[in-house]
Structures are given as C-alpha cells and as structure tokens.
C-alpha cells in the first residue's frame, strides 16, 4: 500500500517536472517568436497564438473560479465546468481521477468513477471532506494555479490530462493549433468569444443547478454519496494512534461489552408464550446449591482475564459502596512475567463479564485493597513493600499517591488497612507485619499523621508483634483489634486514654487460636439491638471463633481488681472446620449470617440462628473460567481451589465475591433468608439470646 502511494507521489512529481519543462519551452518559444515577428518573417512557430489563447482561457478560468470560487470545490481544478466545455479533458480527467486523484482525495466515492462521465455533482459535494494535511497539499497546487504565471494555466490543465492519457498531446496540440490559429487567428478569436459566451451560459446554468441543492445537499448527498471507504494504511495509522481514537475505543468497547453481556443475562424480547424452553429454570447444578429457596446460593458471575489474571493469586476483594456492581480484586505478582508490574488491582463490573472496568498497577504486590467508603473514585491499597497506595478511577493505572518507601512509614508488608472516621474526617489506618500502625490522611501520603508501634505484652518471646489483621468496631474509630501470627488477638488504642496508653492494651488478651489469625471482623450492627461487640475471627488452625469483646472503657475498672495481670478472654463460640479458614465476614445486613472461605475452595454461609455447627449453605465456584491452574494435572486440584478472600456487597448484602489461588473472582448471590435489606426483629433478638446463652455456657465451662 505504501508502495502504491509512493508510486503515485512519484507520478505527481514527474508531472510537475514535466510541467516545469513545458513552461521553460514555452518561454523559449515566446522569445523566439518575438524575435521572428520583429524580423517580419512568417513564422511557422506554434507559440504565437498560444498566449492569446491562454489569455482567453485564463479569463475563462478566472471567470469560472470567480463564479465557483466561493465554494470549496475551487480547490479542485478539474471541476465539472471544465469537463463540460472541454470534452477532450473529460475522459482524461476521468481517468485521472481514478488513478491519480484517488490517493490525494481523502474520500473518493466508489461511485465517483462512473459519476465522472456524467455531469454529476458528486465530487463537488464531497470535496470539503478533505483531510487537513492533504488539503494543504492540494491548496499548494491551487496557489500555483491562482498565482500562476499567465502561461501556466493553459499548460497546467492539459498537463494533467496529458500526464496519463496522451503523452504526445503536446506535439498534438502544436501542429494542429498553430497553423490554424496563425491563419485564422481573428476568426478564432471570434469563435472563442462565442465559446466563451456559451461557456458562461453553461457555467451559470450549472452553478444554479449545483448551488440550489447545496444548502441541504450536505445531508442529502451524505446519504447517497457519502464516501464509505476504507482508509489507507497511513491514514489508518494516523487515526489509530490518535488519542481520540484510543479513548473512543476504550469507552465504546466498554459500552458494547456491557450491552452484549446484559443481553446474555436476560432477553428483554423474550416471549413466554412461545416455546417455553427459555423460562428461567431453577438450575441447581454445579456452582449453585440446592436447599430451601430462601437459602439458595447461586453463582452469578466469574471474572478472569487472560492477560492480567494469569498466574496471580487474589489477595483481597471489595465491593464499591457507591456502585454495588463494581468489585475490586487485588492480585499478587505474576512470577513468570517480570516485565509486568508486580502489583495489580482489577475492578470488575457485574455487567461486563470478560473484561475489567479498570486496571491499576503498583510496583510491589498488593496485599490488601478496598474502595474508599467516603469517595466513590478512590481505591486504597497496601503493598508488600510497605507502601500505602491510592488510586483514582478518573486517573491512569498508576497510583495517584503513595507513601514513601523509606523514612517514617512502613518498612514491612502491609497486610491490613482500613479507612475509619466520617465523610468529612477520615483516616487511612494501615498495619504492617512488624506491628507498626500508621494513620494517614487521604490528601497526604508523604508522611503518616499517626505512628504507633505495637509490642507484644511481656510473656511473649519477641517484642515485635506480627500483626496479620486488624479490625475496627463500627462505633469507635479509636480502638481496634489486632490479630497476630501466634494466634492471639489484642485490643489496641490509637490514643492515650484513661487507664491505658496508646498501643496494645495489655490487660486483655483474646486467646484461642493456635495459628495465625487470617481475618477479624466486627459485627456491622445496624439494627434494633447493638451487636457491635461480636467479633468473628478465622485462623489457619481450621477454626472460626466468635468473640464478645470487652468495651474498651470497661476494661479499666474490670481490671482494677488485679492490676498488671492479663485477663484472658475465651471465645464464646468455637466452630471447627474441615480445612484452613482464610477469611470470615459478617453479612452487612443480616445479624445472624456470616460467610467464610476455606482452603478446600468452599464458600460457606452460616446462620447462627439456624445452626451453629453446620453451615446453611456450602458451594464451590464452578470451573467455567480457566484459572491459573487450569492446565495443571488434576492431582493438584485440591491446592488450586483454595479460596483466600471473600467480600459482601455492602448495601444489600445479597452478593458475595470470593477469590483465591487461581486468580478467579466468583460472585454468588444468596437467597432471601441470607441476604437482602429486610430483616425481622426476631433475627436480632435471636442472636442476642444465643450470645447470652453461649456466654453462660462459656463461663460455666471456664469455671469462672
């Protein structure tokens, strides 16, 4: 393609050269004839009449261009007017337009070639479609034309036709025209006057015809003659490298993918009177669970991207509170792609199944991430490098802010962070595995606003506390629980308060787990009864434990009897599972419901009002999406199904996202009994009764 363009350029260049050559010859001839006419000898020269002829022609041309000039089509030298009056050039210009004009013209019509023969106005209507650059090129030619030395015009016109059609037309013209014009120059003049008059008439008529449809012609013509042609390679490159095009594709393909995926979900044109095979069947296959209708758990979507999800594990999941259809997933690095960024966050849209809505990067593995509950565009994350990062969905994939690697922040991996406070005053609290807790403002991540070092209370072997997870109660942003690698859970204060210094409150210890605590979650009490002191913890010791935490203010007086002694609190409920439990989360709406994911790859949904020993539902993600281990031998199937994280949709509590080793995000929808906003008061009181019963049992067992 390039070569053809090049070829045509060469042709044009060659013609220009020829044109110059002709000009020179004409000058020479003029001089010669002048000399000869001075000498009075009858000259066989051919050029003598030419100037006059060309003068007249020029008049015509200028007339034409004067009449036509107000239209942009004046940029086209071979306007139909000339074709009318000079049929000789019609053919050749027609020829030209097919093999010479075509490359110059930005948008030749497929119909142009045939149209040329007739008096079609098509080219006129389309000329204003010229590409800027090409137009310039065109206009340069026009400059030569209008500025043109007088002799030019004559030459220039036939030149174009000669160039391709009859290369001997120069010789053609000279012998025929010169003797005739010499002998009959007067008569010829008359004739040309006549011709000129005719021409003017014709032009005027034609102009009328052209200009009349012109005002509305833009669109009318657009329909019939719009040049729907494909672009040349160069044009294509130019278009595809433009930011506009890139942005357009980004936007429009997203819209289309949503549109197509929506189609798959439900056909709005479904006619239930027809067929009937399309009626929504209650499928109870793989990936969904049977049981009572309200307690159903059904898989609704799986997200995996060939390019980015490959060989990465999911490290965290979160729903957006503003846009409940958005799920973010953070990933660890892909060990086999050293050139890809280590850290990755993909924001998935439940309405777009095959492609993430956004992709964010980081230099280091992202271990935890969540949407800011106070700002729908912001995403915060904690990295293996100890950095806390902030991304903005309105910006590019790189973080808009990040904490420095050195200095006052974290120097160990940040496995846990949260945003606490209110809409107008909130802080990011991050915690690294060396026990450092930092408070940041969203506006400034260059320096922590708070810095707190958690140290293990005396009986521990090491001073540093290896914190694996933290959790803030709903009601009090100054107090939090920290789960450690050794299995104990400690209450911590962000600030000094009566009876306790900032840091670990050594007077209380929640002891029960024998292995690292993977997850801690306070009850998101939003109902009639305050259950905000209930905490769930999950550990790789194959258990989930339910705790009733001491209110931080009450720890002081309660402990006054035995100062210095650590009060050891046991869980009020111990739920043993069949595998490592990686994550556990309360339902954001149902007071008695929580979900957990385990190393065997199951999502279990529990309702402690129904049963405290077996889950209400247990499901596994289906195999529809090929995860990272899809090609591995099935013997490893056990390993690769492990689920690391789960997240509830915060507003309605109807959806749960889970993800794990294979990098696949799976979203389940739970039935009415396990999710949805309407809760009955019995559910709250039921939990309250259960807790007090459990407390009683626990105390009896402990012999207190």
């Amino acid at each position, binding site marked *: 393609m390039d070569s053809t363009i090049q070829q045509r350029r060469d042709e044009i260049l060659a013609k220009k050269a020829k044109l110059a050559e002709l000009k020179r010859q004409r000058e020479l001839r003029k001089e010669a004839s002048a000399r000869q006419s001075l000498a009075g000898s009858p000259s066989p020269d051919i050029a003598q009449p030419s100037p006059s002829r060309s003068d007249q022609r020029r008049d015509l041309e200028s007339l034409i261009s004067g009449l036509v000039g107000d239209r942009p089509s004046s940029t086209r030298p071979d306007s139909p007017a000339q074709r009318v009056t000079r049929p000789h050039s019609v053919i050749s210009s027609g020829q030209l337009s097919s093999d010479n004009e075509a490359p110059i013209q930005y*948008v030749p019509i497929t119909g142009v070639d045939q149209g040329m023969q007739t008096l079609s106005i098509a080219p006129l209507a389309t000329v204003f479609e010229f590409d800027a650059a090409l137009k310039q090129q065109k206009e340069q030619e026009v400059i030569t034309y209008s500025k043109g030395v007088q002799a030019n015009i004559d030459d220039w016109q036939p030149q174009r036709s000669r160039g391709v059609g009859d290369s001997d037309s120069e010789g053609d013209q000279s012998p025929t025209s010169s003797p005739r014009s010499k002998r009959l120059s007067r008569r010829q003049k008359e004739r040309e006057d006549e011709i000129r008059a005719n021409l003017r008439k014709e032009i005027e008529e034609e102009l009328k015809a052209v200009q009349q449809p012109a005002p509305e012609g833009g669109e009318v013509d657009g329909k019939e003659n719009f040049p729907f042609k494909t*672009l040349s390679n160069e044009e294509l490159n130019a278009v595809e490298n433009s930011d506009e095009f890139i942005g357009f594709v980004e936007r*429009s393909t997203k819209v289309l993918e949503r549109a197509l995926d929506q189609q798959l979900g439900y056909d709005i044109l479904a006619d239930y009177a027809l067929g009937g095979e*399309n009626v929504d069947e209650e499928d109870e296959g793989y990936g969904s669970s049977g049981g009572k209708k309200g307690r159903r758990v059904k898989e609704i979507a799986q997200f995996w991207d060939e390019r980015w999800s490959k060989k990465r594990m999911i490290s965290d999941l979160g729903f957006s509170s503003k846009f409940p259809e958005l799920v973010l997933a953070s990933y660890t690095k892909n060990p086999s792609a050293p050139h890809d960024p280590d850290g990755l966050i993909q924001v998935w849209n439940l309405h777009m199944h095959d492609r993430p809505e956004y992709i964010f990067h980081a230099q280091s593995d992202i271990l935890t991430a969540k949407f800011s509950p106070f700002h729908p565009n912001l995403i915060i994350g904690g990295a293996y490098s100890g950095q806390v990062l902030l991304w903005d969905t309105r910006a590019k994939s790189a973080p808009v802010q990040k904490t420095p690697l050195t200095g006052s922040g974290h120097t160990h991996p940040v496995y846990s962070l949260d945003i606490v406070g209110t809409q107008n005053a909130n802080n990011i609290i991050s915690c690294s595995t060396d026990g450092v807790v930092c408070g940041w403002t969203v506006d400034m991540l260059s320096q922590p606003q708070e810095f707190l070092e958690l140290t293990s209370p005396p009986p521990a072997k090491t001073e540093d506390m290896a914190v694996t997870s933290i959790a803030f109660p709903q009601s009090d942003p100054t107090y939090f629980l920290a789960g450690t690698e050794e299995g104990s859970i400690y209450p911590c204060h962000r600030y000094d308060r009566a009876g306790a210094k900032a840091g670990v409150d050594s007077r209380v210890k929640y002891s029960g787990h024998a292995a690292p605590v993977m997850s801690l979650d306070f009850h998101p009490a939003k109902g009639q009864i305050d259950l905000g002191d209930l905490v769930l913890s999950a550990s790789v010791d194959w258990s989930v434990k339910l705790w009733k935490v001491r209110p931080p203010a009450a720890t002081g007086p309660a402990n006054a009897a035995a100062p210095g002694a650590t009060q050891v609190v046991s869980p009020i409920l111990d739920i043993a599972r069949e595998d490592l439990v990686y994550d556990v989360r309360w339902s954001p709406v149902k007071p008695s419901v929580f979900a957990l994911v385990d190393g065997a790859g199951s999502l279990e949904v529990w309702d402690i009002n129904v049963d405290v020993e077996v889950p209400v539902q247990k499901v596994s993600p289906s195999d529809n999406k090929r995860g990272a281990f899809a090609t591995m031998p099935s013997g490893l199937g056990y390993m690769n199904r492990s689920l690391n994280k789960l997240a509830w949709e915060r507003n309605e509590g109807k959806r749960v996202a889970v993800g794990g080793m294979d990098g696949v995000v799976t979203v389940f929808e739970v039935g009415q009994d396990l999710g949805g906003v309407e809760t009955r008061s019995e559910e709250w009181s039921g939990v309250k009764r259960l807790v007090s019963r459990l407390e009683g049992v626990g105390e009896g067992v402990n012999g207190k």
Partner: protein
Amino acid sequence: MAQNTPDDTLALLTRLSQKPGVQSTLVLARDTGAIVRTSGLISKSASANPNSTLPASSETSADNYTNTRKEGGIHNAEDVASMVWSFLTAAGDLVDGLDTEDEVKLLRLRTKKNELVIVPDSKYILVVIHDTPPA
C-alpha cells in the same frame, strides 16, 4: 483508563469482534464516514482500491469468520456503513427535534435475526452486529 497504546486498543477491538455471537464489527469516522476497522464484513472496494484492505482487520475478520456461523450474515462493509450512517442521522434528527441540547449516545436495534449496537462518539462510531438468543 489503563495502558493506552495502539496495540492494546487493537486488542480491545479484536476481543470484541471475537466475543461469542458477534458477527461483525465496524468502526467509522464520524466526520467523513471513512471505515477505520471492520471485521466479519466483506469490502466491495477491496479489489478496486487495494489501499482499503486492512492487514489487521483481515486477520480479525479471519478470526471472526470462524465465529460467524451463518454465511448469509456477512454484509458488505460499505453498504453497512452507509446504512448505519443514514440510520444514525435519522436518529440524530429525531433526538435533535425533541431536545436540541440532547444527543444520541447508544442505538440498539433488534431485528428478528440479530441486533445492531451502535455507539456514536464525537469522532467515531462503533457498530457491532451480533446474534441474539432465538426468541
């Protein structure tokens, strides 16, 4: 929002054209109507104007042919382009007539056989023709 290189852009379009059910895709420049990319469409002028054959699009369309189950569904790119254009113009006129400050953002046209989804943007137009579940 993420990596914005031409290659990725092309990959996005290719992905779209390879989605199950998608018969053909077409990217038009809005101002000139020039066809930027196609897949699953034949080009009438391909023989007349060799410049119009797009290497990239021919490969996507080749992929797409395997995707396309019914041969009758393959249309002529220029025809589709002009028809889409006039449809869009008509739709634009309608919207303009209702509210001059409004504009067309998305056109979905369901037919008995398939669906056209047209996304008009300020500079370009993306058209996808895809199969719909038999209704």
